[in-house]
């Protein structure tokens, strides 16, 4: 009785199930649930092996070959990697990609955090949460095309407004300086709501009592944000950052529909360069080498982020 009354109510059904489970298990399958588990895992495992592990291993192998897809691959050793190291366009692509990631993730994370905190502290409206998520429901290609038309230098409504108020038109997607920040902001617009909701879910896990206690002690909202919200949100924020940084490094579709890597390679992000080398120039070996390089870069960044943000540890009790 004492134990039951001190446990949280939500634990009760589980405790009940646990109590029943051993007798059932012993009766049905003395060998355990291994076989059943294997059956349930099989479809996902098959997908993992066929669509992820095998292509990765084959991609690594192809990076050591000259391969045009239609004739057998020819082993060339480290040639593709030597070429990559000496290819100024590769390094330029990497630089452009990093520039994109810094702008995209920087603005997106700060904005998403602000929206998530406002959603948590000011309103519980599900409608508002839905509205925040709306841009995410649009495909990247559609979002890219809509913004392309809005921002067109000569004909876009955005530039018509800029011109109407007496300012010079801005070649958002046609100027080397503007193009990457513009693409980064288009993707912030599309993803910020989704990121905010992920962070919002993390904020929901912070016990309300902590804020109440802090209020009693006279802490301001600003102080509570830095002393309670940020430390307790850290593991969630770290995971969100890892996910969004990986996604950001893989930017492709928005570039493909808005600038096609131009002007003058100013938006030739790594994924676009890899795609062009493979499907435009049929250099699948070299494209594979660059993909392996991207994999290494992303793995290193992920490990670094994980360590720096102590994503696996929680400060919550």
């Amino acid at each position, binding site marked *: 009785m004492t134990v039951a009354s001190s446990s949280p109510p939500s634990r009760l059904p589980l405790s009940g199930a646990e109590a029943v489970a051993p007798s059932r298990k012993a009766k049905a399958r003395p060998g355990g649930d291994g076989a059943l588990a294997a059956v349930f895992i*099989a479809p996902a495992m098959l997908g993992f092996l066929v669509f992820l592990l095998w292509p990765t291993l084959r991609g690594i192998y192809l990076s050591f070959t000259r391969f045009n897809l239609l004739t057998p691959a020819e082993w060339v050793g480290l040639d593709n990697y030597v070429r990559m190291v000496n290819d100024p366009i590769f390094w330029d692509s990497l630089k452009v990609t990093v520039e994109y990631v810094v702008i995209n993730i920087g603005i997106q994370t700060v904005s998403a955090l602000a929206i998530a905190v406002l959603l948590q502290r000011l309103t519980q409206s599900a409608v508002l949460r839905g509205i925040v998520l709306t841009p995410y429901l649009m495909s990247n290609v559609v979002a890219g095309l809509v913004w392309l038309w809005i921002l067109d230098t000569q004909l876009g409504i955005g530039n018509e407004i800029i011109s109407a108020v007496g300012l010079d038109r801005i070649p958002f997607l046609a100027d080397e300086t503007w193009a990457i920040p513009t693409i980064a902001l288009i993707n912030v617009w599309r993803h910020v709501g989704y990121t905010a909701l992920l962070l919002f879910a993390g904020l929901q896990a912070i016990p309300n009592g902590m804020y109440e206690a802090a209020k009693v002690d006279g802490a301001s909202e600003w102080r509570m944000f830095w002393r309670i919200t940020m430390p307790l949100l850290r593991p969630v924020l770290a995971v969100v950052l890892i996910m969004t940084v990986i996604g950001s490094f893989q930017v492709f579709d928005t570039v493909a529909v808005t600038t096609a890597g*131009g002007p003058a*390679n100013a938006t030739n992000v790594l994924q676009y360069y890899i795609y062009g080398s493979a499907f435009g120039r049929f250099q699948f070996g070299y494209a594979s080498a660059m993909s392996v390089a991207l994999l290494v870069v992303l793995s290193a960044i992920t490990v670094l982020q994980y360590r720096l943000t102590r994503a696996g540890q929680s400060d919550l009790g």
Partner: protein
Amino acid sequence: MRLRTLTALTGALTLSLLTGCAKGDSTGASASTVTYWLWDANQLPAYQACAKGFETENPGLKVRITQLGWSDYWTKLTAGFIAGTQPDVFTDHIQKFGQFADLKVLEPLDDLDIKESDYQPGLAANWIGQDGHRYGAPKDWDTVALFYNDKMAKSAGLTAEQLGSLSWNPEDGGTFEKAIAHLTVDRNGKRGDEPGFDKNNVKVYGLATNGGGFADGQTQWSPFTGSAGWSYTDKARWGTKYQYDSNTFQSVVNWYFGLAKKGYLAPFSDYNIQSNQANTQVAAGRAATAFDGAWMISTYDGFKGRDIKSAPTPIGPSGKRATMMNGLADSITKASRNKAGARKWVAYLASDECQRAVGAYGVVFPATPAGTEAAVAAYEKKGIDVSAFTQAVADRKDFRTFSFPITDYAADVQALMQPEMEAIYGTGKPVSSLDETNDQINLILDQ
């Protein structure tokens, strides 16, 4: 028992998914069907009419036509070659020909006995590979001319005769530069050749932009480099050296992109391949003229409220006008499942009978002289004067026509030249930087 059933079901589902992936076949190929791909939606009804004629002549054979937009077309075709879902016959472009021939995905068509004299000059010869085999049967051709807004020309006091007899040179631009300067109007209503013209606030550009022009400048700088006597490569076909390092080429490009600095040519920042090509600028009234190809005749003619006419390309320092003359062809894929049917269909596509039927739709100039005549008559019937495009083919004395560069590694050449030309046009990078790019290109060709 339950577990076994579940295992069996999972296995069956997985197997069906896998076999579904492996056997998926969107081509619908069979002994009685010939699959055919093209990219131009305007031409679809014309080729459907041609297919009807073919099916009547060849009972038991059906042609299944698929139309895909330009970008999707090449992506899907590439994927088709890899996955074995390619069509039997497809519309081929000369820029892709070298690569496809190199990848050995095309079927030789020597036995179709294509005679060069049956087609407009030069069209049939372009489709012979370095191995001496034919890989394409000529289907159509196009040239480039100057589309202009007649109302704007009239208000600038320029007649059709004047616009049809323009000349240019890389020093002062000649009467061509004078004309486009006069057609340019700034926000205050001042023309480009009037004192006080504000080149930073242009309302209507004399000449629309079609971007940097990649490696060929088909509708950008090639009418000028061509009429200055310059050629892309050392040989007309299968050249081994590109010539972007030539002084002639660089001085012409310098002058041409320099028109943007003067405010007469729309700046590079106004161009977008998706949202704002030259025809859009003319349609929107933001540009008075545009160089564009014959495949755009119907598009320009369809602009509501704009009376668009066309003039031949200007006379250059060589004393001739120049235009690229590009011709498409039909090719059979090596892995076609119905090669016999495909050969019959390609032979029919290349025949006078089909080309006359296509020409009658007035959407493209077919490759045979009879097909061209049918197209000219059809355009005339629609009230469109296409002489600016056809003169180049009829008048060999005053016109120089040239083809897209036909070489190996065309995709690599494009990949190197595109950013280079965009930088020269967009950011004013010195035109001499083309020396280094040309060296890189020729190094690739030397492989």
